């Protein structure tokens, strides 16, 4: 009698030993879920603009001051970094998952390093990584200089 040996969903978030693309997949999925849930919260949050100034002000202050401390800017920065990562990796995936910027079929040679995970794909990762650092830095600086004066 054979038994099941599925790795299960936990291996989505187990990117060790499989290279950078697997790391980016795990982060893309994680950030995607987080941003999706954030959208639902954000739609509820912004709908309070219809409920008058008192409610709006209270929600703005409460969301900025969760768990009894001023975590607002940190949460905003995290959301920004997560969104920037998902967006920029999304650009890369839109390009490579539709077969662009990938090598033509080639002759495998020992030690069989896959070319689809390297070459232009790696260049994209580096360029978008630099963009990610720049945009995140600008955003985080804006959030912190804007909030704490």
């Amino acid at each position, binding site marked *: 009698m054979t038994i099941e040996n599925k790795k299960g*969903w936990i291996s989505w978030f187990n990117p060790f030993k499989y290279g950078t693309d697997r790391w980016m997949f795990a982060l893309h999925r994680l950030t995607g879920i987080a941003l999706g849930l954030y959208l639902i919260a954000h739609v509820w949050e*912004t*709908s309070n603009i219809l409920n008058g100034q008192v409610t709006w002000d209270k929600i*703005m202050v409460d969301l900025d*001051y969760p768990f009894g401390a001023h975590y607002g800017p940190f949460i905003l920065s995290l959301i920004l970094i997560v969104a920037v990562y998902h967006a920029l990796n999304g650009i890369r995936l839109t390009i490579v998952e539709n077969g662009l910027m990938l090598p033509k079929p080639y002759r495998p040679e020992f030690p069989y390093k896959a070319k689809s995970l390297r070459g232009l794909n790696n260049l994209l990762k580096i360029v978008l990584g630099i963009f990610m650092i720049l945009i995140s830095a600008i955003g985080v600086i804006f959030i912190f200089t*804007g909030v704490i*004066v």
Partner: protein
Amino acid sequence: MRESQIMFLQYLTGILVLVFGSFHFLLISVLSPSPEKILYIYNGANATHVLVGGTLYYTWVKAVYSSLIWGSVFELLLTFLVYHVFNGFRVILSELIPGGRAEKIITYALLVVALVVFIWGSRTVVVSLAGGL
């Protein structure tokens, strides 16, 4: 629809979300109608928030929502986002619980949630444009 068409829209809405989302981020920073282009002021000494003058102050948010251009940007962004997010959830859940009735139930349940989020978000935009509750 074929899966390839659904996923083509997934990539397309992803790019559109990026374009319209950039406007959204610009709106709360450099394009903000508030006099000081900052979110709000937090006074660390006595732990108080000063919203007046910042982007998140009621008057300025209200001003943004009553403008037709920003209203349409928000509405389009919401449409693309809801498609992208809930199709993404569908993909993840269909990989988690593949096949059979469960997958169909999940798909329709997500469709309902997506419609609720879309209507709830559109309500904010449309009612604000019409002049508030």
